[in-house]
């Protein structure tokens, strides 16, 4: 198995999209193989810049991603794009449609695009998108763009993987700025109002600025730019602003702080997953647990005491399941 990954990694670094695609699929599959792959990747990561782009539906995120990517390609950077769309909680299916607006990039050897569903990532499981970022990073993509709709928790969680987050808005989506959830405003490092040719763009930008000032505790005001992704106006300026912002984060030590926090949270997630899998799952599966539940329900036992005993058992090295078995 290990051999396989070496080979794919070598090919991926040489720009073989099929190899990169296979590696990401391995991550998406999860489980032991995914872990072993990530372990192998690890020493090669930490090189890429990771930018997140988010905003309300219809803001033009894919069109902007397309335009920004062309800008970076012109300066010779290899760009990896991960476009995340929500998975239906009812069917588990998803329609991933971001490629529609990125047709120009498809045949560019220096651009890799992958569409991903959020799948069932609630409940603390680490998003596969984070793993996919590691793959692209290890395969030598200089810049990785994570794009997702800014609604819902799992989408915001995706943005936690980024070094820097660009929040995109657009005039005329009903209550303008209100369309951006407060939670997204907080994670933004940079703001852009797309479709600047439309009436109301300036107003939307001003409202954004006002709202940002309200919540502003930092020393430095966050930039709000006007762009038109479909007409290509303001794109170079936005590219430059992203650069500046990134440099600022880097020089101020903020970037290192974020990356360290990210590592911490990634690690915690892994540990949490492990605990769930190895300690909680056997408990849930054990017949005694079912019996205890009945006892609680009949008010014959206290769940509080039971839980405390469970944790104590784990502390002294048991699995917790032997509880009440004697």
């Amino acid at each position: 198995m290990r051999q396989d990954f070496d080979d794919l990694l070598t090919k991926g670094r040489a720009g073989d999209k099929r190899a990169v695609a296979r590696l990401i699929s391995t991550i998406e599959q999860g489980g032991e193989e995914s872990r072993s792959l990530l372990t192998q990747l690890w020493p090669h990561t930490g090189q890429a810049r990771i930018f997140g782009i988010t905003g309300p539906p219809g803001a033009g995120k894919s069109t902007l991603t397309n335009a920004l990517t062309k800008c970076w390609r012109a300066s010779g950077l290899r760009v990896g794009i991960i476009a995340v769309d929500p998975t239906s909680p009812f069917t588990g299916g998803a329609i991933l449609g971001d490629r529609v607006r990125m047709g120009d990039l498809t045949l560019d050897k220096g651009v890799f695009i992958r569409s991903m569903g959020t799948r069932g990532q609630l409940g603390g499981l680490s998003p596969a998108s984070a793993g996919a970022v590691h793959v692209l990073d290890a395969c030598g993509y200089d810049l990785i763009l994570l794009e997702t709709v800014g609604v819902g928790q799992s989408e915001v969680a995706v943005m936690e993987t980024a070094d820097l987050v660009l929040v995109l808005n657009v005039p005329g989506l009903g209550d303008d700025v209100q369309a951006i959830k407060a939670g997204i405003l907080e994670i933004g490092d940079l703001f852009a109002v797309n479709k600047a040719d439309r009436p109301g763009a300036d107003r939307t930008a001003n409202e954004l600025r006002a709202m940002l000032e309200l919540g502003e505790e930092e020393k430095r005001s966050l930039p709000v730019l006007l762009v038109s992704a479909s007409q290509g106006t303001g794109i170079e300026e936005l590219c430059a602003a992203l650069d500046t912002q990134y440099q600022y984060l880097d020089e101020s030590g903020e970037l290192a702080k974020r990356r360290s926090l990210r590592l911490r949270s990634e690690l915690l997630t892994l540990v949490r997953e492990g605990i769930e899998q190895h300690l909680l799952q056997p408990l849930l599966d054990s017949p005694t647990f079912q019996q205890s539940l009945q006892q609680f329900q009949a008010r014959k036992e206290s769940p509080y005491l039971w839980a405390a005993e469970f944790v104590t058992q784990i502390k002294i090295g048991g699995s917790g399941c032997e509880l009440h078995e004697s």
Partner: protein
Amino acid sequence: MNGKTQWESELVAKALAKSPERRSSFETTSGIPVERLYTPEDYTGSYEDQLGYPGQYPFTRGIQPTMYRGRFWTMRQYAGFATAEESNKRYRYLLDQGQTGLSIAFDLPTQIGYDSDDPMAHGEVGKVGVAIDSLADMEILFQGIPLDKVSSSMTINAPAAVLLAFYIAAAEKQGVPASALKGTIQNDILKEYAARGTYIFPPAPSMRLITNIFEFCSQNVPKWNTISISGYHIREAGSTAAQEIAFTLADGIAYVEAALEAGMDVDDFAGRLSFFFNAHNNLLEEVAKYRAARRLWAKIMKERFHAKKDRSMMLRFHTQTGGSTLTAQQPDNNIVRVAIQTLAAVLGGTQSLHTNSRDEALALPTEDSVRIALRTQQIVAYESGVADTIDPLAGSYYVERMTDELQAAAEEYIAKIDEMGGAVKAVEQGYIQREIAESSYQYQRQVESGDQIVVGVNKFTIEEPPVKGLMHIDASVAENQIKKLQAMKAGRDNVLVRQRLDALRTAAEGDSNLMPLILDCARVYCTEGEICGELRKVFGEYRPMEVL
């Protein structure tokens, strides 16, 4: 207790107790509930205000005072395939068979502004229509067909200005002045974004080209219908009847507004606007649809745009029977569907009609199939008697009620689109596409659950052998077309061509009317791909807002 209530509580209740109805509730394709029985109580509108007289506001009953008693609708079969030579033969055949107008189908490269030798055209040349690369092809297409006598309808949208220019130039070669030309260009870009997909440029420059055509034609080609605002493709993409009216008229509103903004007077162009609707199987809902559309458009033109001339308020329309209602299974059944749809269009007061051929769910129609389709119209016209009195279904409690309901449903959609800032915005935001996709998926699910029966598809099926003798477009068509194109390019004055193209590009960067410049290009045999290529340089290309 009134009569109907009494009837329901006694007779109906007794019958229901014995055996229930086929389903617990009935509704039209637009989701409008259908009652068991309609009586005078269900229709309370004022005759004079709501219905009136044919040829008079609000035109509910028809746009001409004599309708089909004067002259039948124009029987206009959409046709075109392979090369200009082949299509010319088919047109002459159709005219010999008693068809009264031509309707030109172009192949996809022509519809999207690519020459036949463009790599994007590979595999598509001559497939769904005729390949026209330049004036040279247009001359062949109408060889022996007098353009001052025959009216031509051209299904062309994004590059409508270019094909119209080819047509005008071809007429000049026949010695026919532009002022004598009669016909229609579809020229309806908004429904391309929303439903049909053959767009080239973004909305703003596309709307400019459209108003350029309005202006040019009002001065130079006065008998030309400068646009055919189309609900047909919206319906084909899966909309309901109510959505078909709503989205079509919302597009119409956007075109009128664009022309007004360009400084035109409403009565100078509104009379040349025409419409294009679908005809599906729900006969009475369809009849009500045409009547509702006519009444609603008249109201919009009068109240919103303050049109003065009657003609500006008249909704004149072409109809095509519903392609998506045709089944690949038991294709002869399609003849019956088309007959019902023909009745719907005629009872609804259409100005012209295309009837689909039975084999179109399988391939382009054969000559035999096209003849049956045309005969269907002729049978309805000459044998059925429905064309002998005007708007014969008026006064039917059900049809009048349905007309009101459809109008109300359409008005509700239009209000929503107005709120978004009009049809252009609604398309850019994907609203219209989303509504259509939703209806289309609903319908598909109804068919799959058996809620909606399609005869021969999900009920009354049989084992059947593959249909033989379908029409095939040979690969040699493309090769010949490309050879012809290259020979033409070698023989023309290429210095002049370059000059005219440069002039067009410069003009496109400004804001003058582009139509005269495109015509200048056409006259010296610039190709469609060259002309659209210059415009692409200035205007860019449209990227869809894909919605699922």
